[in-house]
């Protein structure tokens, strides 16, 4: 039991933090949103730092690092409200290197590590909400291999990606496929989201696809579990930033001739935010440290973590706006952007009620970090 970071992890954190402070300013972020919510140059800068290859095996040109390293990186990107979907790259790297056949790995992992190829998960469908085990997308064998017909929504940076990981039903069972952008019958219509980032509506009509694995549900659950763990880490970063902004504001803003940090009602609210932040950090650690556990244990840990994070994100976001007063609801000031980011993250990869359902349905007689 040890919650210290290694020297290497500390250096990794410092490197990402320096890039965020220097290169990903609030002004640049605003410009990226105005230009569509995804910036290939910024993504390329993450690649230059080696981050796109963080979870790619060494023999495919990556750094072969683990969940804790990913957590450290995502916390820092969260602090900078970075919108480029590195979390997608990390999850796709883990799933491809664990499930994809060798030729598919060799074709994609090196490109992903170098940042040339962005590969994102395209699993959200209109009618299934957050359920993973059902989808309407259909796959069938074709002359080139397989063909998929599907509609997938809210695909992160979906029209800027080079390939999508698409779950679809094959012979009555969920399988996972890789579909290359530009393939016949594939259309991605992009849009900006509430938090300023980019997503796309993806339609596939008899589109050629390569099989990643017939064990599609297990692969998809791995992808989303990694996704939730990295999202938790990123959310901790966003909340650290949000909390620091709020504390600083209370110690700057004067009303009735005094600093508003002298008002007990506001001090107690800030203490409650600190509580939610530290509970969230604790559960982010928990999810990350369970990434190597057997699938069922990992899945439960992730669900527990997302419930805590969902509650924390909503509370910290809403209270940060409230404690800022009028400036908190303007577009001009950064805190509303923190709030919108946190809100969007709560509804990404399963919201609080969804994950509460997972925990509730699977509850055992004994429970704890160590049950």
């Amino acid at each position: 039991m040890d919650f210290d970071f290694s020297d290497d992890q500390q250096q990794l954190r410092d490197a990402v933090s320096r890039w965020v402070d220097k290169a990903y300013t609030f002004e640049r972020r605003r410009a990226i949103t105005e230009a569509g919510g995804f910036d290939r140059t910024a993504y390329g800068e993450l690649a230059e730092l080696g981050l796109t290859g963080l979870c790619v095996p060494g023999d495919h040109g990556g750094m072969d690092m683990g969940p804790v390293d990913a957590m450290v990186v995502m916390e820092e990107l969260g602090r900078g409200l970075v919108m480029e979907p590195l979390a997608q790259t990390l999850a796709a790297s883990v799933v491809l290197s664990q499930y994809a056949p060798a030729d598919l790995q060799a074709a994609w992992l090196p490109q992903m590590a170098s940042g040339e190829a962005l590969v994102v998960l395209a699993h959200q469908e209109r009618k299934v909400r957050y359920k993973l085990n059902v989808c309407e997308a259909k796959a069938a064998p074709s002359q080139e291999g397989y063909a998929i017909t599907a509609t997938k929504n809210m695909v992160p940076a979906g029209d800027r990606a080079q390939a999508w990981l698409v779950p679809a039903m094959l012979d009555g069972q969920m399988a996972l496929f890789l579909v290359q952008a530009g393939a016949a019958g594939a259309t991605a219509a992009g849009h900006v989201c509430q938090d300023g980032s980019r997503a796309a509506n993806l339609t596939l009509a008899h589109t050629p696809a390569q099989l990643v694995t017939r064990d599609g549900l297990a692969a998809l659950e791995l992808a989303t579990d990694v996704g939730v763990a990295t999202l938790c880490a990123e959310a901790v970063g966003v909340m650290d930033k949000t909390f620091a902004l709020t504390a600083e504001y209370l110690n700057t803003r004067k009303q009735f001739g005094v600093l508003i940090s002298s008002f007990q009602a506001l001090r107690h609210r800030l203490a409650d935010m600190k509580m939610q932040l530290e509970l969230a950090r604790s559960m982010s650690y928990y999810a990350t440290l369970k990434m190597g556990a057997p699938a069922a244990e990992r899945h439960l840990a992730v669900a527990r973590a997302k419930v805590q994070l969902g509650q924390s994100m909503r509370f910290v976001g809403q209270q940060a706006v409230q404690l800022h007063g009028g400036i908190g609801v303007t577009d001009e000031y950064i805190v509303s952007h923190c709030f919108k980011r946190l809100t969007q993250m709560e509804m990404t990869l399963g919201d609080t009620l969804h994950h509460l359902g997972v925990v509730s349905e699977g509850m055992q007689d004994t429970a704890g970090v160590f049950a």
Partner: protein
Amino acid sequence: MDLAFTPEEQQFREEVRAWVRANLPADIGHKVHNALRLSRDDLQRWAKILGSRGWLGFGWPQQFGGPGWTAVQKHLFEEECALAGAPRIVPFGPVMVAPVIMAFGNAEQHQRFLPGIASGEVWWSQGYSEPGSGSDLASVKTRAERVGDKYIVNGQKTWTTLGQYGEWIFCLVRTNTEVKPQAGISFLLIDMKSPGVTVRPIKLLDGECEVNEVWFDNVEVPAENLIGEENKGWNYAKYLLAHERTNIADVNRAKRELERLKRIAKAEGVWEDVRFRDQIALLEIDIVALEMLVLRVLGAERSGKPSLDLAGLLKIRGSEIQQRYAELMMLAAGPYSLPYIFDAMEAGWQGDAALGLSEFPGGNVANAPLASAYFNMRKTTIYGGSNEVQRNIVAQTVLG
């Protein structure tokens, strides 16, 4: 970063578990697992069993006869005791006054007081709170006037937990009224059998007498019972508060009570009610998050890093969780938690057929005290520095 305990720590846990299983009297475990009334004898019997193993002072360093455990070992010991159904160690002697005696008492005081605490022979009480002092501890008014080689003590303490059993009491007393409040307080050990000491139990909202008022009417206390220096008592009290660390969260007991809540929910048929079960699931997640918070504090302590400033959060969250499980247990039993039967909290109570009390759903006669436990738990956000005071402290660390 790693979540697992070391093999040595795992081994330690197994040893403690085996010993507690073999030595915890079954009748006491039964009472704890069903939240029945514990007598003075129950508490002291377990204290003496622990004392005989050298574990009552489980936080003590070896030089004072303690096991010299690490923070992690102490946590594992407390967890194994809690899960096995051992009563909480009554903390006033071994956990609260002993560290102060060790740190600030003289050699003669070590000899005189520590053995009786370590063995569980002598029952100690805490004399901090006073009528009107609330969470503002520095306002104590109980006077101790030095006359020759004695102090003459006059005043009143209150909320003295289990003080009706007390043989000795450690008190914050005022020895100087001319200076600012914190600078005129001394730390005095008082024999409760002394003439002039009167103890009156206070009946609480659950009908139990858990706390007391204690009066001092010209009580003569030998000057050699003063710990450390006169007027430095506030520092010693603060040292003591700094010593209460992760155990304030009481997460181990919460894990045991969560199991009990699930048993009750199943017996009452609300386990199948999704709306109710979701509330249990939320509590379970809260408990896991609290446990992670506790582990982080332990981890920081072990790696010798400056301790994470999370103590206030642990108290707030731990007490809220205690209240929540008591609340959900009561709600699970619904109207069957409402009959107030004083005897129902005694082990061996068989129900009362005439009142229909042997026919609770699930045949679970232990439902009767559930509302009482809920009422009792309202204390947790008030004592030990109210949660509002804790929020002041948390905000202070952030905002200055």
